[in-house]
């Protein structure tokens, strides 16, 4: 019969069994009371979900809390500004100013980035090669002092106390962080904001219907021609704006080989660089070859996210395409006077190309096929304070 000593077989095995059952009961009861609900991304079939940090798993409760925080001006020191002041849903979570303005009126150097599919980005901001998590990125608007954005520095305690007093937040924080529901912390605030931002996925444009839902009639003939032009070796757009998010800086499922996808597009090459001239990645790395290099942003939802480029200097898509067709920008006057086309670090993929008026229209029609109306109208992303008392 058994080769094991009798005491082992009877006592110990039962003990294990009991503890397993006890643990199971705990789990089940926790589920019904406190355990947060896993968040499921809204994606087309077969789509890779975005990477999510292990220490901040996506839950419905955190997303909901983050959404409240995102739209709350109490998050800025002087109660005037929320994330949504510079990232507006109607503008695909960017804004129509060329460059942002902080809570105290200071002007930022850059155009607010659209938060479309931001969870897939390999790096964050227009040009930073080591800012690789949303959690880290969020600290910038919160704490930035030069220029001041939301002005948290030195005011953290006061701001957290503000939130702590609010009964809505007491409930939301307790639901999002059930295992630590004593005092609201900055860490929780940032994690919740990051979770909401990760939930901002947009894959329901006519292009997506065509490409990923297999709907052959989702694109017009002009848009299909434009897709061909976009993918052609003549324009080379696909090189830097490739992949399902139309940005080479996409952290795709299982991506293990990282590159530094930053490019100088020949936008500027000032003969006399003004003080504080934005040199992009160079300002971070101080490497000569990084001068004027920026991350290629997603081309989704462009209709809503104008103006374009890191400084919002190009107002329309026609201007952007003319810029590429000329192989960069030559400014004959103004403080940035100089020939961007001749910048020594300009990408070898930016080269002038001929484009007929019809081809230009086709290309623009194609870019418009990347607009996802359901994204800017999605009630799950809207201001929750307006719909709830």
């Amino acid at each position, binding site marked *: 019969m*058994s080769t094991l000593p009798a005491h082992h*077989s009877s006592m110990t095995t039962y003990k294990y069994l009991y503890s397993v059952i006890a643990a199971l009961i705990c789990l089940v009861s926790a589920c019904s009371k406190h355990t947060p609900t896993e968040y499921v991304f809204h994606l087309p079939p077969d789509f890779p979900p975005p990477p999510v940090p292990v220490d901040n798993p996506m839950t419905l409760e955190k997303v909901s809390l983050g959404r409240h925080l995102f739209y709350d001006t109490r998050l800025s020191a002087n109660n005037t500004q929320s994330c949504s002041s510079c990232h507006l849903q109607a503008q695909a979570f960017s804004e129509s100013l060329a460059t942002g303005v902080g809570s105290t009126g200071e002007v930022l150097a850059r155009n607010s980035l659209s938060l479309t599919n931001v969870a897939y980005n390999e790096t964050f901001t227009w040009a930073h090669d080591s800012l690789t998590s949303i959690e880290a990125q969020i600290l910038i608007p919160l704490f930035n002092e030069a220029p001041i954005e939301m002005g948290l520095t030195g005011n953290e305690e006061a701001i957290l106390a503000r939130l702590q007093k609010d009964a809505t937040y007491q409930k939301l924080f307790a639901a999002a962080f059930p295992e630590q529901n004593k005092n609201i912390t900055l860490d929780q605030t940032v994690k919740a904001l990051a979770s909401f931002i990760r939930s901002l996925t947009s894959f329901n444009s006519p292009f997506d219907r065509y490409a990923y839902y297999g709907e*052959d009639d989702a694109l017009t003939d002009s848009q299909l021609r434009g897709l061909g032009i976009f*993918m052609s070796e003549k324009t080379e757009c696909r090189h830097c704006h490739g992949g399902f998010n139309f940005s*080479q800086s996409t952290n795709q499922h*299982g991506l293990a*080989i990282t*590159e530094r996808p930053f490019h100088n597009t020949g936008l500027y090459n000032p003969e006399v660089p003004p003080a504080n001239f934005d040199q992009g990645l160079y300002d971070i790395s101080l490497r000569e070859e990084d001068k004027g290099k920026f991350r290629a942003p997603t081309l989704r939802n462009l209709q809503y996210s104008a103006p374009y480029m890191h400084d919002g200097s190009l107002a329309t898509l026609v201007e952007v395409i003319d810029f590429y067709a000329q192989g960069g920008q030559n400014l004959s006057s103004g403080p940035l006077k100089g020939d961007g086309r001749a910048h020594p670090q300009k990408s*070898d993929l930016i080269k002038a190309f001929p484009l007929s008026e019809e081809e230009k229209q086709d290309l623009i029609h194609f870019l418009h096929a990347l607009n996802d109306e359901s994204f800017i109208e999605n009630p799950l992303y809207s201001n929750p304070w307006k719909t709830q008392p």
Partner: protein
Amino acid sequence: MRKPYLIQLIRTLFVTSLLLATSACSKNTAQPITIYFSAAEKSSANPASFTLRQFKFYLHNVFLIDKQGKFIPARLNDSPPWQQSTGALIKLDQQGEQSNSQITVQPETSVSPDEIAGIQFTLGLDFSTNHQNPLTAVSPFNVGSMYWSWQLGYKFMRLDFSLEDRHFNFHLGSTGCQSASPMRPPTDHCERPNLSTIQLLDFNPTTQHIQLDLSALLKLIPADTPNTHCTGNYQDNPVCAGFVTQLGLSATTGQCIDQCQQQSFFNVNTASAPQ
């Protein structure tokens, strides 16, 4: 007395699975073999200052050739991120933080390393890998800079460099692939597959490595050549056509000329691993 049986059963299962695992290992006693690559960048052929920007290529379909001239199929090990059984990515430039100058293969039949006298592989990817669903592709098939579109598939080789301030981009891949749009995969083979068969004889992976000879390519470029993009219509530009010919391919048909035996880009270097 039912529990002891249970424990017994678990033990039996455990031992059986151990045995199974060991026997699976002993089925193929052939040692995995690693093959190294390098790029010879320095060139006396072209005095203009040379800067390598990107140099990457895919390969698959590897055979080792023994001293008797026998072809031994050698499977690429599944070892992401740089290789899967369906293909490997070699990256010989220093751009970005990572590069990869080697592949590891598992010969189908046992072969002693000093019996190996040659190697053959296909530069590029086979049709089904090349036109796989890009959404579900895993490393090394999700590297954006090596991807064209679902219709055309991947860049089999990407070589970007500058001579002084002039830029050269050689992107080799299948062309003439028919489908409704770039977002639809072709159902049939591409008109110009541009798959080159690279065969190197007198090559032993333990004492030698494979070297890519950029100087031979630079010799093809006349001193006053302007910026050149070879990204599809290779036959239209003599420099692009020359590049394709160096790989043993015809620029007009996209097929091997004379089994690609005239390729002169891949060579044997007598050092065992790249310096």
